[in-house]
């Protein structure tokens, strides 16, 4: 059990390519986050979950799906910790566990709205891809 928790935490670090220990808890990520109000776990708290090897809680939280993947936090983080990448990695872990109940790529073009901003699409792909 302990080992699998540790493994999950390592997976997040591996996928995200970040080192949560670099965080100095300045909160700039939370200050920058446009989705802050809707989040249950705030951006500056992500690193603690990884350090404390509680990725499970992170993978279950709403923030995972509230995050817009705008990467403002990644861009501005003074220590290059990239909370957005951490949440992205947690999301991938969650997605991997859930199994394949997602869109087939061929179905997508029909569903795309012309007026939709590109960035949203990319974010959506990042969030919902398998």
């Amino acid at each position: 059990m302990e080992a699998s928790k540790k493994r999950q935490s390592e997976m997040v670090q591996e996928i995200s390519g970040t080192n949560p220990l670099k965080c100095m808890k300045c909160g700039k990520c939370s200050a920058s986050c446009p989705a802050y109000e809707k989040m249950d776990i705030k951006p500056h708290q992500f690193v603690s979950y990884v350090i404390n090897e509680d990725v499970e809680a992170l993978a279950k939280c709403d923030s995972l799906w509230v995050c817009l993947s705008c990467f403002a936090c990644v861009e501005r983080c003074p220590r290059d910790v990239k909370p957005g990448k951490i949440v992205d990695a947690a999301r991938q872990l969650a997605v991997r566990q859930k199994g394949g109940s997602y869109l087939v790529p061929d179905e997508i073009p029909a569903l795309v709205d012309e007026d939709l901003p590109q960035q949203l699409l990319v974010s959506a792909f990042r969030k919902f891809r398998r």
Partner: protein
Amino acid sequence: MHGIGVFVCHCGSNIAATVDVKKVVEMARLEPGVVHAEEYQYMCSEAGQERIATAIREKNLKGIVVCSCSPRMHEATFRKCAEKAGLNPYMVEIANLREQCSWIHKDIEEGTEKAVILARAAIAKVSLNTSLLPGESRVTKRALVIGGGIAGIQTALDIADAGYEVDIVEKTPSIGGKMAQLDKTFPTLDCSACILTPKMVDAAAHERINLYTYSEIEKVSGFVGDFTVDIRKKARYVNMDKCTGCGVCMEKCPSKKALSEFNSGLNNRPAIYTPFAQAIPNVPVIDPTQCTKLKTGKCGICERFCQAGAIDYTQKDEIVTRKYGAIVVATGFEIIKLDNLEEYAYSQSKDVITSLELERIMNAAGPTKGHLERLSDGKAPKNIVFVQCVGSRCDESKGKPYCSKICCMYTAKHAMLIRDKYPDVNVTVFYIDVRTPGKNFDEFYRRAVEEYGVNYVKGQVGKVAPQPDGSLLVHGVDLLDGKQLKISADMVVLAAAVEPSPSVRKIATMLTASIDTNNFLTEAHPKLRPVESPTAGVFLSGICQGPKDIPETVSQAGAAAVKVVGLLAKDKLLTNPCTAKPDELMCNGCGSCANVCPYGAISYEVKEINDHGIRENRRVAVVNSALCQGCGACTVTCPSGTMDLQGFSNRQILAEVDAICR
């Protein structure tokens, strides 16, 4: 060589734990030339040294090897010990059994085997050692201080008061530095100018201090005790002897578009200017990039109005060459550029300013005459947000990895002063940590919170967004309350990181003083020699060595001065005898050794050489051993091996190689 003694130190258990010292002694005895070998608990102790001295005397040892810690640690100790016992100090070699053996190896067999080899190499080397006598070099009793800020001024004053001549070289037209730009100082809130200007006057009036303002270091050669420095005195276009400092020229100058460096570029100054009213020397300079006369040949107004006839458009840069015994670097700091931190909108809004700019705004001699107002529209701000750690404690892609150390305190000072003078202004400080180690520092910060009602919020600002109505929307977070904040401010003050003055890199290269990745000068030892550079005769004062506030800078300035005085008080210095030595018989006189010598220590003479009975005049290399520092560059460039390095001769090094590879 016969008569070698080997002394193996246990260093308590530091060496003895992973090296079988008895075995090392046993093996050393088998080496050729070794007549004595022993081990002892602590060779560097008095009892240990006594053992060595006794053995040297009783067994008439010709050379000794001490197997102990690094030679960087105790080579000098054992050399002294040998000298006292009547052995030339350069007949001592150290085998580094601690740092380079016992401390890195866990296996005793492996450690012992390596220790035996290291001892063997040292024995092989010492058997080829020759007695060397250090030379003497004179000490020029004059010091150079580079930089005329508070660090440089204080160092110069202390050296001069101790009785030695000092020159200060300052690149701007006046001494005073950054401290002259400050309004008040923490934690006492006394006026910066009030405490600095008397020191500036003292320095200028001191009979043993000579100021070279508007001057830069051009070239440095020589070594401790005997540096030769070229100083470029930039053309002032004003004759310093004639100028009375009346200031009419500055009033009359029609070209007033240049940004005032002293006021952080917040207002303008004329082309002919002194940086500030209390400048020392009170002699203006003409900025050649701004002066119409110098650019187009037309104008000449200042010359016409100058009663003293001091204006001289034909002045040229002048190089003065001076000799010094010691050099102090006090080049200070600059505020970093904020290009990588665009989220704070520094370049987008005039009302986002740095703390140094606020310093000028609050100063009575500043661009707003001391009135707190917005630079965009001149209105009095109602909400001010301070942002801490701007570019400090950052990943290297964004800013500086270090803490700038002074920002927490000056921000508390600013917040307090504003609340004191304008009680209706709301002041919010976004901080990550408030760092206040220092006498009366935390008390000062607490007063800002408790007495002056400054609103401290833990959390970094994410973004500053200029609004169409001219206000600034600050996106922040209160991490303790778990709330995201959006504060409408009308002024944002950024505590931008400090960095060493960019000029220091060039100066460090000229001085061969080492510099770290952040361009701070490296000290000789971080704890025990904090004001000395590893380069002998070069000392450090102020922020050039690392971030520090005024009291720390002044103490370091005093410490550097004492070190300088200690050096200048000596009449002669002993020089390193490990210098290059040419063999005249072999020398081709080809010139390649002089080409690679960084000290100009090699010259060529035509000498009559007696080469096995054949007398002829030959051009041969001659080494000035006072200039030679013993790097050995010449020894390798010389194809015939004419040049050899005493103490590290070809044969000695080859003997070590052979012993290691045996």
